[in-house]
């Protein structure tokens, strides 16, 4: 069992896409669809430098949220929705190979990544990637995915203390 409630972890483990929301320099939320990867403690998302504005925004403001909302992108029964808030850091110390530490988690959700990686010469900048590491602070869970009912709220930081 990880730091998040089990129904939320099940979502993170199967979701093919999530919505990462960051806060830009003017204080506005900006949302990006990304694959969430989870090791029981930290949520990882990776971003190519081609689409690196989100990395810059996180460096300016580390507060982020990740929502899992798409019924076709998850494999859980019964369907549910969740949003996780957390503090993010960007690991871009080794853009070329540093992200490969999350490759085993990525491969589970997108097996075709190995084929793309084999063609790295065709897309060299796509595989220069930063890793966004999100440490959850709070989670919201909507049973059956119905947001017209209040969510269950889990205070992750307090739960870990």
């Amino acid at each position, binding site marked *: 069992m990880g730091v998040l409630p089990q129904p939320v972890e099940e979502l993170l483990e199967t979701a093919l896409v999530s919505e990462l929301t960051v806060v830009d320099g003017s204080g506005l939320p900006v949302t990006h669809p990304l694959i969430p990867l989870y090791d029981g403690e930290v949520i990882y998302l990776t971003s190519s430098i081609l689409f690196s504005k989100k990395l810059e925004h996180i460096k300016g403001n580390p507060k982020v949220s990740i929502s899992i909302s798409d019924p076709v992108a998850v494999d859980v029964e019964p369907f549910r929705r969740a949003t996780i*808030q957390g503090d993010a850091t960007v690991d871009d110390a080794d853009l070329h190979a540093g992200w490969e530490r999350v490759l085993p988690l990525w491969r589970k959700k997108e097996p075709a990544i190995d084929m793309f990686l084999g063609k790295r010469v065709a897309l060299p900048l796509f595989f220069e990637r930063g890793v966004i590491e999100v440490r959850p602070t709070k989670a919201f869970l909507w049973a059956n995915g119905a947001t017209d009912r209040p969510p269950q709220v889990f205070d992750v930081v307090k739960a870990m203390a």
Partner: protein
Amino acid sequence: MKPTPELIAGLESRFEHAVIAFVDDDGYPLSVATDFRADPDRGVVILNAVAGEEVQPPEGERVNVVFSHIRPQPGIGYDERRYVSLWGPLRKVDGRLELAPDRVQGWDEQEMSFFELSERGVPQARKYLERLSEDTGREVRPRLSFGWLFLRATRLPFLTATFVPVLLGIAVAAWKDGFNWWLALLTVIGGACIHLGLNVANDVFDTQSGADEENVNPTQFSGGSRVILYGLVSMRQMALLSLAFYAVGIGIGIFLAAYSGWGLLWIGVAGALISLFYTAPPLKLVHRGLGEVCVALGFGPIMALGAYYVQTGAYDLEPLLASIPVGILIALILYLNEVPDRPADARAGKRTLPVRLSKEWVIRGYSGAVVVTFGLIAVFAITGLLVRPTIIALAAAPLALPVIRALRDSYDQPYALMPAMAKNIQLHLATGLLLILGYVIAIVADGVFDDPPSFLT
């Protein structure tokens, strides 16, 4: 960019749900999914209210509403990626939430390929690397392994364009006047060096002119190596690499001229000048619609005649005639590869033939050149101007048909044209190899029979 009524009208058919993202009282972003409907006439999106004090979107404030879609593909991942992100003020109306968006961003991979999206991100990537370099106090650059980088920077696979005419010239020489293997090897190496020097120089000048940066639809066959644009290699390193290739190629050429006869210099100098001024100022021949002619001369008669001269010490009509079909076909490789590049080439002032001509004339030009190529092969072989077995090169002609079909069907779709570009390269390679095989058959027949039948020589 402001969302159009068409975009808002299309939301319901393209997406199943919306996600409202806002910043909560603690300063964290918070995102909540909900159902929606679009009202394009009023330019608004109506979202179902969400329940719960802690997750209430702020009324009157600017929020981000995102619509996202994928289609899972078990065992692979997913496809049909698309998203639309809207920003605007949110207000409560009749128990629902109404977004009046004033800004939009998005992507639909069925409308813009992932490769194009990636190319459009290159300036952002360079900016990120510059900032990271400033922050860390060390130069941060993208990397590729040496082998892949060399392959990409030099566009090594295109060397078939050199091998075909050089080997053809050598084959004609072997038929007429004998064969010296080490001179042949040096000729191939020298020709390859000049070709690689040209490829690398082409990247230097296309980066300088802005043609590569303008081109957001490169393919593996067009749009250059892009190694300078991507920051994988510096302009200076590429310029030095180009000079090194030219120096080795010219050095080999001078040695071969000294050995075989100074008459080789005429063709060597012509080849080097065409190669250099193909993209280099002040001539920039490719910018003036002369690229195809230069390539046809350089990778046709010049290479074949040069290779023939090295072996025999003289010029002759036969290698010249043999090289004309391969010269036309290599020009057609450039011609087709310029089709997806034409918007970027036009913006960079590169007036190639596909930039100058309409779609119909580009297709007519291609088809006509193919007919001329194989017509010449037939005439040369039947009349004995080339050895008769070279008639087998006609077998390659059907490879042109899918290329013509693709030009008709996918003229404005760079990535759909890629298989046709590959087929076009095969057309050149197969025709060249079959011409060479024709000469090999004639040489073998001449060795085997005292009086070989006329159809074999």
